[in-house]
């Protein structure tokens, strides 16, 4: 991946054109400059589209984040400095969604990463005949979040949903086990369904996201695992290292770039949670699944006031938060390398 690419070809082509060997003359260098300038033509369409549809909106949102601005009354917009940012920090309606999102991240990301790593390691150990298994395990990845959210709303339906019955069974078994140990019941799946209960709704959404997305992480881990040289393990076996030590001293360090990537992507994805609760619970019950991005969306498009200025501030705060998280993850990842 060297850049600039091999310089030799620059002189080769004009030589072919006039049938003489190239000399480092003014003509060649003019040809070379003209040739390289053509690059602009190839880059231009993408650049125009990108500037219009991505760069301009990014800059515009940044500007809006300092205005009290609604799209309904563009003329009454006024500059308010950092007011929007102060409001987003101090307004209580923003705190709850932030904590809900953090709660979702805390229950979702560890399972999302650790289970994916375990499954990937198991798939990697299977030498033959695992194609059907892999296909089955990866299939949910191609189902769109909206379809899978509607699907799981049915799945969680208290009257007929299979997931509802399975969860009830699992919780019942856990309660019986707890009773054997002399403890009281651990909990119960609500009769009205998982999504209608404020303590369970986010867990239900997290389970659905796990089903829908874990295949991506498994694929990433598999790619990372396959890159680890087999010799390392062979040498470790010769040295008499146990399976656990091989995992701890070879797999984990070798995999650390992949782990970094997966953790980062999972954290960012979790923090942007929007569609699934929007479809499955509309933020309810009692706002218990109202996430940060949903709050942003509501401010901008739902509450009828189209407060694009304030919503822009929320969007930029999210960008800043994600940026901070990526720095943090990068820092934590260092010592493992």
């Amino acid at each position, binding site marked *: *991946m060297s850049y600039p690419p091999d310089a030799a*070809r620059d002189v*080769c*082509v004009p030589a072919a054109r006039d049938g003489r060997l190239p000399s480092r003359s003014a003509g060649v260098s003019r040809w070379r400059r003209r*040739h390289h*300038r053509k690059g*602009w*033509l*190839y*880059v231009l369409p*993408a650049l125009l*589209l*990108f500037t219009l*549809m*991505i760069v301009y*909106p*990014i*800059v*515009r*949102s*940044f500007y809006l984040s300092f205005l009290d601005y609604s*799209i309904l009354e563009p003329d009454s917009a006024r500059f308010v400095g950092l007011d929007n940012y102060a409001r987003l920090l101090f307004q209580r309606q923003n705190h709850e969604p932030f904590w809900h999102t953090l709660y979702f991240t805390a229950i979702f990301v560890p399972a999302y990463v650790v289970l994916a790593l375990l*499954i990937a390691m*198991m798939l990697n150990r*299977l030498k033959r005949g695992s194609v059907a298994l*892999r296909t*089955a*395990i990866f*299939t*949910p*990845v*191609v189902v*769109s*979040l*909206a*379809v899978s959210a*509607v*699907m*799981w709303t*049915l799945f969680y339906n208290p*009257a*007929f949903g*299979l997931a509802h019955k399975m969860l009830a069974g699992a919780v019942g078994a856990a309660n019986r086990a707890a009773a054997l140990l002399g403890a009281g019941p651990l909990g119960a799946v609500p009769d009205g369904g998982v999504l209608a209960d404020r303590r369970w709704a986010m867990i239900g959404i997290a389970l659905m996201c796990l*089903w829908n997305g874990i*295949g991506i992480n498994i*694929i*990433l881990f598999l*790619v990372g695992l396959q890159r680890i040289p087999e010799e390392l393990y062979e040498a470790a076996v010769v040295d008499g290292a146990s399976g656990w030590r091989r995992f701890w001293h070879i797999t984990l360090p070798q995999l650390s770039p992949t782990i970094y*990537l997966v953790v980062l*992507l999972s954290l960012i994805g979790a923090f942007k949670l*929007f*569609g699934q609760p929007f479809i499955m619970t509309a933020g309810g019950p009692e706002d218990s699944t109202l996430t940060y991005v949903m709050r942003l969306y509501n401010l*901008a*498009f739902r509450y009828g006031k189209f407060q694009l200025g304030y*919503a*822009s501030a929320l*969007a930029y705060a999210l*960008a800043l938060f*994600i*940026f901070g998280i990526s720095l943090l993850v990068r820092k934590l990842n260092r010592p493992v390398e």
Partner: protein
Amino acid sequence: MAVESRRVSATLWVILLGVALLSVMPFAWVVCGSLKPHLEIQRGNVWPWQPYEVEKPAGQHVTLDNYRKIADKLSGLPTYYFNTVYLAMAGTFLTLLVGSLAAYGFAHFRFAGNKLLFTLLLLTIMIPGEVTLIGQYELMFKLRLYDKIAGLLTAYTAGHLLLVIFIMRNVFVSIPQDLVDAAMIDGAGTWRVFWEVMVPIGRNGLAACAILTLLGIWNEFLFALTFTSTEEVRTLPVGITMLKGQWGLFNSGVLFATVLLSFLPIVLIFILLQKYFVRGLSAGAIKA
């Protein structure tokens, strides 16, 4: 040693089989539910071996009525489908074309500002889509693209450009210079080099980009929800949430069938092209 390793791999098989079953079960369950009338579903009789309890004729197990209702145009599903397929195909084509041309420009031409421009593009990955969303929403009105398929097409194409540029730039840079030279000695201009050297050699990379873009557009929810408001321009992800409200309470069987029809094509394509999908997904993720 051999006995032990056989036991280990048997254990792995059992665990993974369990994981695979959990992954596939929701699909199977939706297929079953789509074959049942509403009242039977509400009574919990979703499986095909459970006979009707309240619905007539008694003793029947399954029906295709739900699909008939969808085919009778009682549902907006065909429109949503058409829009999504159109957007996915046109968007993927446009993104690949514009993106790989730019990637070629970045990879093989040393024009002034090449590196700087590329770095600036790289920096924009840090900005989450939610930031662009608000600016783009306003822009949609200014460009008269709000509530139009063309608006979504532009947004999606622009939104997936970076991915294609990054992947394809890496692919094009690794194409041996000798091949380009050979083509140019034969009198090919840069345009022909692109089509006759870059594209054929980079086809694996292009396939990976196509899959990522296709999946991205097929699944996109937030922008489609924000930039459209009428039935005619709804995409499948947004439309199905509307159908959830429309069918969920009084005709859950039709909702089951709708869900099934929404995931069936993409799941079938995935099973057929599994290898390419996995390769594409991993290529994209490594870039990110």
